[in-house]
């Protein structure tokens, strides 16, 4: 009985954390541009060629 109540509380808290994370990410604009981040991550930090071969 009390185990169920504890589990209930935990499950609601975990779900709540995800809800807050979702709302936060929408607010930050993480879904505004879905095209550039996947491209951006592939770039080197510094250009590796100064002259074209």
């Amino acid at each position, binding site marked *: 009985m009390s185990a169920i109540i504890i589990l209930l509380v935990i499950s609601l808290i975990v779900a709540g954390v995800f809800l807050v994370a979702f*709302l936060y990410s929408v607010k930050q604009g993480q879904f505004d541009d879905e095209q*550039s981040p996947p491209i951006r991550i592939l*770039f080197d930090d510094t250009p590796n060629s100064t002259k074209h071969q």
Partner: protein
Amino acid sequence: MKPVAVSTQVTCFHCGEDCGKHPVVAQELQFCCEGCKMVYEILNQGGLCDYYNLSKNPGSRQTSIVRENKFAFLDDPSIAQPLIAYSDDTQTHVSFYLPQMHCSSCLWLLENLFRLNQNIISCKVNFTRKEAEIIFNHREVSLRSVAELLTSIGYEPYISFSNIKDARPGVSKAKIYKLGVAGFCFANIMLLSFPEYLGIDGKEVNLVRLFRYLNLLLSFPVFFYCATEFYQGAWRSLKHKFLNIDAPIVLAIWVTFARSLYEVLTGTGSGYFDSMTGIVFFMLVGRILQDKTYAQLSFDRDYTAYFPIAVTRLNNNGESSVALPDIKLNDTLRIHHQELIPADGILTRGKALIDYSFVTGESLPVVKEMGEIIYAGGRQTGSNVEMLVIKEVAQSYLTKLWNRDELKSGKKDEQRSFVHLTSRYFTWVVFGIAAITAAYWLVNDPTKVANSVTAVMIIACPCALLLSNTFTNGNILSMLGRNQFYLRNAQTIENIAKANHIVFDKTGTLTNGASLEISYEGELLTPQQQQWIALLASQSAHPLSKAIAEHLGDRSPESITGFTETGGLGLRGSIAGKAICMGSKKFVLGNKQGDEKTAVYVSIDRKYRGRFIVKNHYRENIVKLFSKLRKGYSLSVLSGDNAGEKDFLQNLLGKRAGIYFHQGPHDKLNMIKQLQSTGKKVIMVGDGLNDAGALKQADAGIAVSDNCNNFTPASDAIIQAEKLPLLHKFIRLCRINKRVVVSSFIISILYNVAGIYFAVQGNLSPMVAAILMPASSLSIILISFAATNLAAWKLGLK
């Protein structure tokens, strides 16, 4: 390095286009033009040649050279201020729209902009919107130099008057918040309802009560926050004395909530919280799918988006930039090559060759001499000219048309989808069943009245109709979007489906604005004569002469003497002792009768030889499109051009089609109105500002664009020009939309009938409701997706 004989096609290292016969060579790389080479050199110096490794030929062709002081207006703080998003002591944040952006190389180069100028602190690209947010140190570098730097590497910022005024519409974040909250509450309520459905031990009274109260708690955010979406919709429609689908849905939500609240508080049952939150959740998903907008497109542009932000004004002490609204009467303006004329005025210096194609639909530029009136909206080609303003921007002939009240106000006073009407009948039927149930139980067992009536209201909410509608619309919108036919909103699908008459513009819509087709008729010319004519034609900057020179190819090596050009009429000169004359019929032959075609007449040695007939180049597969459309629609063409191609068009469209020439913007608008007054539902397909009125007046206005990111007049839909031949398929898909909505609605009614069977008996258990509701929602979603995808696949669309 040995000169290499170029036999195969050489493509430009920068932009990948054909270099022609004489490529520009730098560092053993070939370029199509000086512009591309210059961009390469800038990048090479900056150590940014990775640009060329990330994707092949990533650049865009640098044909039009941007004049040196084009961005001078950005030095004027009053013009620059509205563009700047944020500014403090050291930094300025500005966001530029860069239409040339198209690939990963572009993204990489732009985000490495700080390597080309150390005073640029950062540049962050939003690819979906084709925008770059640039932060720079304004003490060291000006806004103007930033714009010029972007231009120098091939990304000219597009700055227009309307940028300043309004932010672009985005997806409403509030709706997504509501969706998130509804999803959270729905899932948890469902979880907490399981024990009771699965038969929790009756002795665990406290636990049962705990679950119920938790459900009640979790339903509050849905009832008071998420569902406001529908409350607002219902309230708005009631204010307009129109009952839309939101009203019965709100009623169902309230009834469900009130009954559940009562059951929990009195301890008589567990309520229908899962059904209620589930309905709200699924309906929000549908709404969001349907509302998906194309962030990079704008459907609401008016002429201000087309006009430049500032022009050059001449005054006693030199020239200065002046913002468009600040142009006063009697100002003298200098108009550069490729610049738009911002206001009506009189030409005071230079010879103007004005391309009105976008404004009036005339396919060829018009020559204007000093002292003539030039109208706003035309594009000057050739040399710089000066003009005296005689009407302010907002008062000019064409801007006045776009400012007309009837065009400004919202398109249709109230858009009424068939869904709303159907929902009304549906609601009456539900009330009827509820009334009969109440009457029955009143006689037989009055205690069951409230129970059964509320159950009927709960189960028979028209949410299935709304769901099938929003999901089908959303899916069709995104399918059309994948095929580069972008609709403004879901209502447009219905408007297109209802149409029975299609009106086309000619110039720029059916024809490709840029290219001309030339054919010759008359006495056969010897190759030598052809070369003479080519030489003569190549002396002139008139587009017809240019087109003929290009058509004939090789020019005579001899020299030309006594060359004269009579503006807009023709050319004279003598080559190898022969007097050659080419130009309009009047210029060459002296009479001007019965000549509707665009043609250039040629005489050699004062003897008429023949004429070059210039035709617009029709887009590919247009013939096929019309052969399809002729079957189901009445068609018309409204053209601002001359009647030269009447026979051809009549053939194309069929005998019954109306074909009208010399149509001004007002005529087009009135023609659409006239058609509508005879009860026709009209689709207008057009491209230019001269069609703007007609596009707005029509039941569905479709703007054709060679590049969707360029300017298109306000419209309901934008179609990529190359997809125009598929228009009949797109229309078919829109017509299928209604059938899919109705059939999935009918299927969902079957679920409702099952539900009502329990409800009228007054024993609708929460579990039955909880099974029926998601089952009907999911099957609607599946049916609508499957049906629309099947239809699209049958039509051969992506």
